[in-house]
């Protein structure tokens, strides 16, 4: 029997650009051309002012650790506990769920507000996930 696999995202027409971005090593966000609001998750209109004139741009990939849990049980398929499920606040404003790599998965190492930078983890030839590591320097 194959190892249980990590849940794989399936892009939709509205999110395809995001997943194309991660595959290309870019974290892509959207900004409203009318009111400049930056938002996530992807959609082809601005959730702040309803304008359909929005642009996709490459985010800095910088952020900080907003909150997290360290999951012990039950573990999701494809994960070895304990592992942190984090919410990262991006420099551009939006928050996203992710994982923290290159860092012990402990309360001592995972300090709220620590600076993070994006990294990319390929699941297969279609999907690459954005994950975060402690920022250097």
């Amino acid at each position: 029997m194959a190892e249980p696999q990590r849940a794989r995202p399936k892009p939709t027409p509205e999110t395809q650009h995001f997943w194309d971005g991660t595959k290309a090593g870019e974290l892509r966000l959207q900004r409203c051309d009318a009111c400049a609001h930056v938002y996530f998750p992807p959609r082809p209109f601005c959730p702040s002012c309803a304008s359909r004139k929005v642009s996709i741009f490459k985010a800095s990939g910088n952020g900080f650790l907003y909150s997290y849990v360290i999951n012990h049980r039950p573990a999701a398929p494809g994960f070895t506990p304990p592992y942190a499920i984090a919410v990262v606040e991006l420099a551009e404003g939006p928050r996203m769920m992710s994982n923290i790599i290159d860092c012990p998965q402990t309360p001592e190492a995972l300090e709220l507000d620590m600076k993070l930078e994006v990294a990319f983890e390929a699941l297969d030839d279609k999907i690459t996930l954005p994950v975060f590591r402690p920022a250097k320097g």
Partner: protein
Amino acid sequence: MRRNQVAVVGAAETTELGVIPNASQLQLHADAALNAIADAGLKLSDIDGFATAVETPQQVCHYLGIKPTWVDGTSVGGCSFMLHVRHAAAAIEAGLCKTVLITHAESGKSMIGKAPRSIPADSLQGQFEAPFGVYGPPSMFPIPVLRFMKTYGITHEQLASVAVVQREWAAKNPRAMMKDPITVADVLNSRMIAYPFRLLQCCLVTDGGGALILTSADRAKDFPRKPVYIMGTGESVETPMVSQMETFNSSRAFKTAGPLAFREAGIAHRDVDHLMIYDAFAHLPLFGLGDLGFMPHEETGRFIADGNTRPGGKLPLNTNGGGLSYMHSGMYGMYALQESVRQMRGIAPAQVPNAKISVCHGVGGMFAASGTIVFTNER
């Protein structure tokens, strides 16, 4: 909506609570409904309005043999039943129906006739949360709590005391699942589930159900039970993705629904004799006390740890033992409503003496939705 125009005239839980291996989820709906109908002294044919969540109204109405002229299938998680009460009160006032039955049941433990919850891979949750290892409520609901603790200076011991105090209430309730006393140390030494939360800070997983019957306040005086009036109501939703809440320092849905209900009821916080705050996990009463405006969030942890919500305290909270100790089938809101009704009828196992106003506040999903009902036994 005008206050005290609609009343609860029937209320009951399933005959058994806990582990019920001999009934499907649909049958648990029927069991709760039949108990509530008996409690109200009605016949099934008297019911002309029906509401439920997860199961569809057509499923439960057909099974019970009800022919409604008004239905509500609002399904926003565990507080759906608070929303049903609000919608039913509006419908009765508007003359759309006369007698509404609201049912909840869940084979949450035995999983008989219950569809498993699944997250489609192409949903937003499936794309932007599921790949990062969330797996059921224990891995998701506590995600905001570390930020909340840091912002307001809440301690692990204070969060543990929520479970301790609710166990004190549960000890007074013969139907509570968990009745043995526990200490803060017991909580902090229990098995780690999702740091910072341990087993005793997470809700139970059980089978059960409950049902309510509502009618106009004018008709309510002719029923066998003391009417419990709907004094004020509120509801809202925020987001199905816990990661996308506006802030982890409060719940926008709580802050919308709660104050709406207080305003409609025309009450101040000091008027509240009894309080239920849906406690799927130990941080929810803290969010609730702050977001409903009882006190600044900074004070919520100390307030509970100091014993203000325990038996004999000045603000009796979650007097059935809550989702942490009474029962939690998955959508606990119905059991919070049942306890508020029992308190207003004066028949609760851990009765708050002379309680006249009860506030019942629910959450749906992981802070995704909220509903608040203010009950009173005086018109």
